[in-house]
């Protein structure tokens, strides 16, 4: 394996956008039978490098080399022809077509010019077995959860029988179980001689799966080495270029005080008759496999979907909020997981996004008060370390900074309860640290923070208490030392664990 030739290389590639250099002379070489990790903070140039490797963009300088030959005029079509497949973060599926048709899309087997459904069926069945997709193949993708769609996306890449497979944050919407299936699959592909490039913000996955790593920082390679003999701290140092403390802030010693939320017999969407409570000063984590009712629990408490409870006490009220405005009035705010669609108005500026919930409160005589607004905007931007011009559209920001804006807009109404749905999905490590610290400070100030997360280390190290949901019911409630990755994953998957009793 050591004397094998790389299947795909980038040699000294440069690429900029509008005069702003993003990649400054990057080298990377993907070898058959090796899982190669690509690490870097958001904005380090990972996506641009992937786009160059897959032909979606052309380098300004330098070259892409396939099997030792310069690729010349390189396009997505020639990349496919060379056996290079990419699983992008943004899904490329068509909602109203079936799973099988989506997997074959763009690479349909044909007979007499028509799609050969029989051959398609066989090929799709094989790749679905590999990725653990058990849904009927004629099911429209629209009926699948986000995690299952991501699995279809992976199957779609495999269907093209790639020699080089690039996976861009494939686990960001997968459950722990699905991520495990993917990990096994990657090992199989590696042993079959596929070259894999794996991009993830989850260092434990990278360390478990990959043998070689390239680290990007500000468009330059800061590390290109074997993963053996380097620990998480070392990787983080290469990414951020300095010593890092612990990713998670220490838990506060202060005891939680008054009960802020107490519900019994609570049902909303997929959540069925659970009891749940939270006190001021606490960070409560909600874990579980994807789609077990975590989001519905938050939305139900927020009054955004119909919910009912036999007994409810929320912020001194004896009732669940009927709608979102009532929840906001009671000091409850919600930060959605899908920040691009539900949390932000992407084309609008940072300023107008963070001022949105406060517009009515700041108005005088029904007209907007510009000076009060700009004061508030400057204040929030400073508080949340949102860098640069607040007049920029939010869509120009990295994922982490977008999330900060989605969070910042609620602070002026001084919420007593924050509901957060997967706030660090697709967020780089440095911003994650900032967000964790911010959440811990909120709790210390006497607020209640409830966070649904698919990132198990986050639940373990950030939260004071973790509630694990399974099929809409509480599978475990863990506190203090009982919180461990094993206990959370075990409860989520229905494995009995000692000490996991509620």
């Amino acid at each position, binding site marked *: 394996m050591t004397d094998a030739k790389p299947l795909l290389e980038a040699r000294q590639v440069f690429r900029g956008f509008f005069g702003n250099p993003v990649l400054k002379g990057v080298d990377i070489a993907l070898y058959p039978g090796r899982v190669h990790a690509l690490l870097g903070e958001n904005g380090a140039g990972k996506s641009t490098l992937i786009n160059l490797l897959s032909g979606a963009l052309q380098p300004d300088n330098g070259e892409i080399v396939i099997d030792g030959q310069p690729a010349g005029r390189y396009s997505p079509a020639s990349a*496919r022809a060379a056996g290079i497949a*990419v699983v992008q973060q*943004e899904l490329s599926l068509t*909602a109203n077509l079936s799973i099988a048709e989506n997997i074959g*899309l763009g690479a349909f087997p044909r007979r007499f010019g028509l799609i050969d459904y029989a051959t398609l069926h066989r090929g799709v069945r094989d790749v679905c077995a590999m990725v653990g997709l058990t849904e009927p193949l004629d099911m429209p993708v629209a009926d699948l959860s986000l995690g299952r769609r991501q699995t279809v996306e992976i199957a779609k890449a495999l269907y093209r029988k790639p020699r080089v497979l690039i996976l861009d944050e494939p686990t960001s919407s997968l459950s722990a179980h699905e991520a495990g299936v993917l990990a096994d699959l990657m090992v199989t592909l590696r042993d079959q001689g596929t070259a894999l490039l794996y991009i993830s913000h989850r260092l434990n996955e990278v360390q478990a799966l990959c043998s070689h790593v390239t680290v990007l920082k500000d468009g330059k390679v800061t590390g290109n080495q074997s993963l053996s003999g380097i620990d998480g701290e070392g990787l983080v140092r290469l990414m951020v270029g300095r010593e890092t403390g612990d990713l998670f802030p220490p838990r506060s010693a202060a005891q939680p005080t008054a009960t802020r939320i107490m519900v019994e017999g609570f049902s909303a969407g997929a959540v069925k008759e659970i009891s749940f409570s939270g006190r001021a000063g606490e960070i409560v984590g909600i874990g579980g496999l994807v789609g077990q009712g975590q989001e519905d629990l938050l939305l139900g408490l927020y009054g955004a979907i*119909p919910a009912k409870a036999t007994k409810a006490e929320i912020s001194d009220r004896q009732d669940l909020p009927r709608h979102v405005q009532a929840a906001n009035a009671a000091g409850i705010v919600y930060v959605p997981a899908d920040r691009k669609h539900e949390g932000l108005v992407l084309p609008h500026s940072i300023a107008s996004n963070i001022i949105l919930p406060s517009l009515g409160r700041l108005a005088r005589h029904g007209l907007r008060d510009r000076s009060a607004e700009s004061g508030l905007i400057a204040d929030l931007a400073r508080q949340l370390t949102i860098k640069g011009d607040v007049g920029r559209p939010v869509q120009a920001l990295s994922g982490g900074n977008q999330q900060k804006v989605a969070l910042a807009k609620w602070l002026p109404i001084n919420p007593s309860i924050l509901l957060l749905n997967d706030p660090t999905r697709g967020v780089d490590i440095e911003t994650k640290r900032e967000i964790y610290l911010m959440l811990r400070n909120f709790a210390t100030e006497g607020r209640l923070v409830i966070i649904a997360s698919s990132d198990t280390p986050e639940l373990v190290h950030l939260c004071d208490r973790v509630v694990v949901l399974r099929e809409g019911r509480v599978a475990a409630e863990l506190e203090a030392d009982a919180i461990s990755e094993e206990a959370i994953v075990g409860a989520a998957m229905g494995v009995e664990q000692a000490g996991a009793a509620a």
Partner: protein
Amino acid sequence: MTVISSSDRLYRAIQGRRNRGLGGLYLVVAAFVVLYAILFPGILSMGGFAKFTQNWFPLALVAMAQALMMLTGGISLAIGPLVSLGAVIAATTMGGSLGVVGGVAAVALTGLAIGAVTGVIVAHLRLPAIIVTLAGSFIVTGVALILLPRPGGFIPDWLSDALAGHTPTAFLLLGLILLMWKAFLATPLGLGIYAAGDNPVGAFRSGIPVERTKVVAFAVSGLLACLAGLFVAAQTGSGDPIIGTPFTLNSIAAAVLGGVGFLGGKGTMRGAICGSLLLSVMINVMFFLGFPPVAQYVAQGLIIVSAVAVPELIHAWRAKR
């Protein structure tokens, strides 16, 4: 027409699932047709059935034309003018040296060409279809009026008899067109229309030639609209440069009744055909029951709004339980 891998389980399962999604619509259409047959038993005779399907046929064609546009994520405001132009070209060419065959070819080529040009403008210049087809509707109407300023022209009697006489030719033609659509949808290009309409970026990355797919969809849509015009000319025995006007909005209404979505990639051709049948039956019923025209319009509007609202309400009601 070869049988499209009909032996394959996967293909049948996908088709079956699409039919199940339309079950409610099929029931409503069947109920209306039965009601119609009870009110007007004449439809059960050969001549009555022929007349009924002839009234429905052009609406079915424009519903298909509109559904195609909506599947690509656009909408066409030029359907009616294209129907008029088709009628005018048929009526002005068939009497001349081109003859009937040449006339049909001229109509078909005109529809394909106008559709393709519109498609190129929309797909390659990334302009919204609604604006481009709005502009197109003025131009096409103008051209139709230049070719034939007032109703007239010539359609051979035998052609009128063959298409719009006492035989259900129109119904058979519709069946044929549906089969051709089914074959088209079983090609990678046809299925690509759904992908290009729903998620153009994803379709591009999957290797679908998104622009070419849209241009083909627009061209086929133009073809169907112009052929509807040819049929209308045969029905009336002459060309009329503004006869197609009501078809623009009726085509949208029929497609919406049939469950075709506005955002692209959602809906089925069989749904659009059912929608057009429903609309046609409703118009006929109200006409024969002696509704004044004003009441017809109001009723038509209410029915279309409920067609869109009822599935949403059922969905919300199910979610609540």
